[in-house]
């Protein structure tokens, strides 16, 4: 899955709507007629767009010969799918049991107050979106959070401003973003 997401984020500015639809059509064509095609196609679609806009859902419904309501129903059921665009950096705070026990909620609160947004929201400058993850499977590193592909381990609420500030500069080089929480 991550492969597709990466692919999208490196060319998100460039691809036109037609190009995106063309790529979606390729996927639909590949899966047409296969059993259980809807969910994998939606996963790819989200990889292409970064989220699932209505136009993509309609295209999928049409291509797979499914009622739109069924497609929307499936999208609404799974937490992986999002129908709203996300910010440049997706922050996911793990609230699995281990992270919760080790203070994940305090980390979440610190981020909320720092960015002034609630879970499921995006900052006005579209720099950050905030989500809760139910478990990364990184329980050994609790509390954990991720920003984009970077996982931060044993995060302390007092460190949150420092971590976020590294993403504040738009040109922050990838190399500059190191795990400071360890």
């Amino acid at each position: 899955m991550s492969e597709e997401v990466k692919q999208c984020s490196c060319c998100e500015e460039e691809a036109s709507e037609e190009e995106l639809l063309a790529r979606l059509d390729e996927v639909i064509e590949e899966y047409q007629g296969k059993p259980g095609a809807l969910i994998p196609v939606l996963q790819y679609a989200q990889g292409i767009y970064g989220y699932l806009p209505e136009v993509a859902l309609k295209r999928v419904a049409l291509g797979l010969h499914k009622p739109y309501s069924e497609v929307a129903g499936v999208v609404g059921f799974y937490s992986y799918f999002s129908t709203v665009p996300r910010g440049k950096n997706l922050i996911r705070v793990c609230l699995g049991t281990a992270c919760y026990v080790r203070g994940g909620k305090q980390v979440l609160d610190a981020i909320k107050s720092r960015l002034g947004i609630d879970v499921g929201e995006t900052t006005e400058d579209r720099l950050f979106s905030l989500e809760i993850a139910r478990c990364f499977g990184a329980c050994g590193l609790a509390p954990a959070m991720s920003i984009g592909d970077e996982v931060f381990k044993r995060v302390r609420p007092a460190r949150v401003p420092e971590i976020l500030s590294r993403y504040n500069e738009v040109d922050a080089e990838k190399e500059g973003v190191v795990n400071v929480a360890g």
Partner: protein
Amino acid sequence: MGEKSAMSIPRMHMMMCFGTACISSGAERVREAMAAALDEHDMQDEVAIIETGCNGFCAGGPIVVVYPGGVFYTKVQPEDAAEIVAEHVVKGRPVERLMYRHPTTKAIIPLYEDIPFFARQELRVLRNKGRIAAESIEEYIARDGYQGFAKALLEMTPDEVVEEVLASGLRGRGGAGFPTGLKWKFCRAAEGDQKYILCNADEGDPGAFMDRSVLESDPHAVLEGMMIGARAIGASEGYIYCRAEYPLALERIDAALNDCRRYGLLGENIMDTDFSFDIHVARGSGAFVCGEETALMTSIEGHRGEPRPRPPFPAQKGLWGKPSVLNNVETLANIAQILRNGKDWFRSVGTEKSPGTKIFALSGAVNNVGLVEVPLGIPLGDIVFDIGGGIPNGKEYKAAQLGGPSGGCVPKDHLNTPVDFESLPEIGAIMGSGGLIVMDEDTCMVDMARFFLDFIQDESCGKCPPCRVGTKRMLEIVTRICEGEGEEGDIERLVALGETIKETALCGLGQTAPNPVLSMIRYFRHEWEEHIRDRHCVAGVCANMFMARCSNACPASVNVPGFVSLVGEARYDEALRVHRNRNPLASICARVCFHPCESKCQRAGLDAPVAIRHVKRFMVEQEEEPLLPEMQVDEANAQRKVAIVGAGPAGLSCAFFLARLGYKPVVFEAEGKAGGMLIQAIPSYRLPRNELEREIAMIEKMGATIECGKALGRDFTLKSLKDDGYEAVFVAVGAPKGSRIGIPGEDGPGVYDGLGFLKEYNLTGTAPMGRKVAVIGGGNAAIDAARTALRLGAEEVRILYRRTRAQMPAWAEEVDAADLEGIQLFTLVAPEEIVRDGDGNVAGVRCRKMVLGDYDRSGRRRPVADEAADFMVEADTVIAAIGQWLDADAVMDGTKLDTSRGGYLAADPTTGRTSEEWVFAGGDDVTGPASVVAAIGAGEKAAVGIDELLTGANHAFWRREVDVQTAFDPDADPSETPRAEVDELPLERRRTTFDEVELGWAAEVAVAEARRCLRCDYGKYCSQG
């Protein structure tokens, strides 16, 4: 041949853990640095860097294991690479600095099989973790991979395969524990041209990561299990349903599937037989309910993952209506070894009904977080303490949570419970998929219940009302309790709702959803009651109930950030006033308080807790004459007769608060001086006597009268007080009787009880002292007695304690001080007899060596006699300080009061009221031996309780929090500042004098330390809005 080596095969392998945890800890950067360092020495061909899957010891990542030798490096950073190459690779000198150190002994442990975390494990499913390149099918084959499949395919009939798995006793590792062989048998017997075998890798339990680790480190083991299963049931297609959140696992599955196809292990006519089989991957899209087998199948079919009613069971009608078997990752990873090694091998570990091993994802408040594989039936305590290394930061084990949102918790009195499919349900937990989360005293069980309900509510698919509506209703109630709005009857409502949901929900998820809440109510009901009745969260989690965690932890509810921040502005008088508002004995507590506030200090998350007690010490030193607190004049109260029995910390505190409400209480003290244990038991090197007298004088000045030499039961009784017109009595006589050891030779000269000995010295200034003293016990009284004996001139002082040093109830700093002063600690020894010579004098103590056995009700390992012979500890004086008790009958003397277990007085924790309306009690005579500050808190509560009895209303004006008005910038990011140290009296003077051991601070040190406070109270005062 030139200088450059040209080795055809590498002479060394560096196994680098590339599990998710190590990657997050920077494994990739370490690999790059290592490769660069090897290049620099031109050794890139000599040494192979091999990426393995999760090693399991996630707490130590990034991990590098170097072969030959198997030297185990932990927490390797990119900058360490050069040293490893230059020293270990080139010169063969392993780098000790990076090796694992034993957490307590600090000894270096170079080989990973010797590390306690691994030593107790039984690696079967995880046998290849860290040993093979995770993406190499050849290395899997080199470790006997696919031999089981070849055997099943070429040498056995499908029925024989099913029989072998059935006979092995393997039970599903996903949670329910259904026999795997039986599942296969049903599916094999089902009619159908097309059958499916499915692998559940949708690890949904939010605290479990073992399936991810298995898939990352040994994907072929799972595939081989699926192939064997497919052969057994007659399936031609398989699906792995794996969470999309596991990109690395998905990547490795894909690579492994491709390798299998390349080698013809998947595809048509495998190994030239008529068996054809292939495996597809379905990516889960984040729905917990899809862990339920019918929901998972619905999801693969491309629909909303809602469960289907059973029957029909999947073995008859599963995926796309065809007979299907769904097994969990770990179950499948067991299969190949069962086929290869046989059922008897599989049964050689574990229990009769739960054979084999189980992997647990050990996390939470435990030192060694990571993946552990243990034989089933192992006591839970062994996983937490032996493998997990116990609880970090000296905190206390509270509970372990097993089975995630469907499971329950195991409190400390059940640590002996064998971890298997039968035993756990008996105590309200389940095995579950293997998430094992350890919780310490900082975890609030009500808040945890809310966490699980919140999760379930979020993940409920909504198909059936009991789950959808019922859990929502439960969540509302628990949320209310957490926010301090709980009502009487809430607990009963939750239990009733939970039972209904269990009986009526459609699928397994719904039926088990109430389990965590019911389990937390079952074992921690008192915590729920405290939340509802007292609006108090003992763990300091439910933030609506307090201003700051330190104050919340203080039994006397002192406004800690208030007085600390005032010290930070050098406003000492105001600081002291804030302190005495809730705790009059500031100077005493500055010396002897065990400071529960510091262990809850949020600053620990940044560097170290604020040294609150020492800030307090500096604050009280600035006071010349005690200032009187805010007091109310009340003529009516002044006329009411109130008696307090006992002038210890509880009695003094009660007198102080009653005086603030205008009462003129009379305090009766049995001894010649007021102070109770403060003066009788606590030595002056810890608490200088003038400090004590100063604060007692303050309370007298406020209007309390202290009458010394008047003992309850000797000079008066409760009844005679009533007859004398006292309207209320507060009984605070402590627990002054020393317990007997109960061994031969105890009666006679030379044997003293600890409290008696301390009291004699502290009140008279002398006490009989021999040359060789043996103190029996491990509490604070034992340490006080030993250190006093040393100062009285004893040449050799030994403390004999039957448990370990870490288990001593005495405060660690006291034990350390005793150790430093030359007192010998003999731990794990139990006295069996006090041996006397011909003249009847003490000659020594005959002891038996103890070893730690199973866990007792307090969650500590029980000492049991060792096989080894007993031995003598020479002594001419024995001081027994093994416990204290209350002679409750002597207290009551005709006035019947209820008592609690242990023979103490029963009193309402909120008001101190006993079963007799006009009698109140608090301090050690209610709780048993406890702390000074707990007694102070109890005295305050009783004062309020007495006032309420006499006036019908609560007038405790000091309980209203007032803003301290100190400067604080909430936007300033705190920077790391070490905690200020405390100087101590030189050792040679400590051993011979009773001078105070701890020395004070200079003003600038105290002010700087006070400013380390993070002001958790900021913005929480009512006046600030």
